[in-house]
């Protein structure tokens, strides 16, 4: 009985240590391997609605079908962010500006996703 508990405790620690280790290695790798973004793709409910280079500053507003709800996406100094939105949670507005390949800003209520991609054409996934 006690030995089973003992073994379970040891397994707990092994589990926690290996998960933390894997996550940390993954995070470090992704920090070292991250590439600067070249352009961003904006999708609404899974469909692409815009694709822009990050090298030219601009501001675009996407309206909901009702014509009232909106998200304003701004590209500035090679970073992209959502600067204004009518969604109730405003999480997209509070997300920090993104600039690396694979990073995303999501507006859940409006189904809007902004993703940054690197030089190569087309989406590929970072590890």
């Amino acid at each position: 009985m006690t030995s089973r508990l003992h073994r379970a405790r040891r397994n707990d620690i092994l589990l926690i240590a290996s998960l933390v280790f894997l996550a940390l290695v993954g995070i470090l790798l992704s920090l070292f391997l991250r590439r600067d973004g070249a352009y961003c793709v904006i999708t609404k409910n899974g469909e692409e609605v815009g694709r822009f280079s990050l090298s030219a500053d601009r501001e675009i507003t996407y309206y909901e079908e009702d014509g009232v709800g909106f998200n304003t996406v701004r590209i500035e100094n090679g970073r992209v962010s959502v600067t204004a939105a009518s969604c109730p949670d405003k999480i997209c507005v509070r997300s920090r500006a993104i600039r690396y390949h694979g990073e995303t800003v999501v507006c859940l209520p409006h189904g809007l996703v902004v993703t940054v991609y690197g030089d190569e054409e087309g989406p590929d996934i970072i590890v």
Partner: protein
Amino acid sequence: MSEKTKKLTFLALSCTLALMLSYIESLLPPVVTSVPGIKMGLANLVIITVLYLYGLKEAAAVSLLRLVMTFLLFGNPLTALYSLAGAVISLLAMALFKRLRLFSTVGVSVTGGVLHNLGQILVAIVLFDSLSIGYYMLILTLTGTLAGALIGITASFLIKRLENVYKHHS
């Protein structure tokens, strides 16, 4: 009190507590700002306690009732979908690992915490049709493991205290 009344009272109380924990969690800043709606799953403290004291059926009932109530009170169908995916996958994993007897309550809670996040990320990937969201699983594995461990330690104290009063099978 009859055994049945005692059990019903306990499960009702668990639901309320789980609901309160979900509410408290909704006030905390998000774990990953870029993917809205992802939660650590504080309510898992209650779910795992019920799982150990009664079983999978009872834990699933409390979990489901908690989800429905959260939805009715501060409902948003999309966040409800996240919570549902997270809750189902984490409860099934916890029940499986509890049965396997590989880990103590803490390890079981950690698998629940990590898979809770995995369930939500999978929903977000499908919902937004964006594989790059999967990248956030790295940071969520870290937070899920730590939150799961803390919840597991707290739950093991709770279970020890409550099992003399409530446990219905030995």
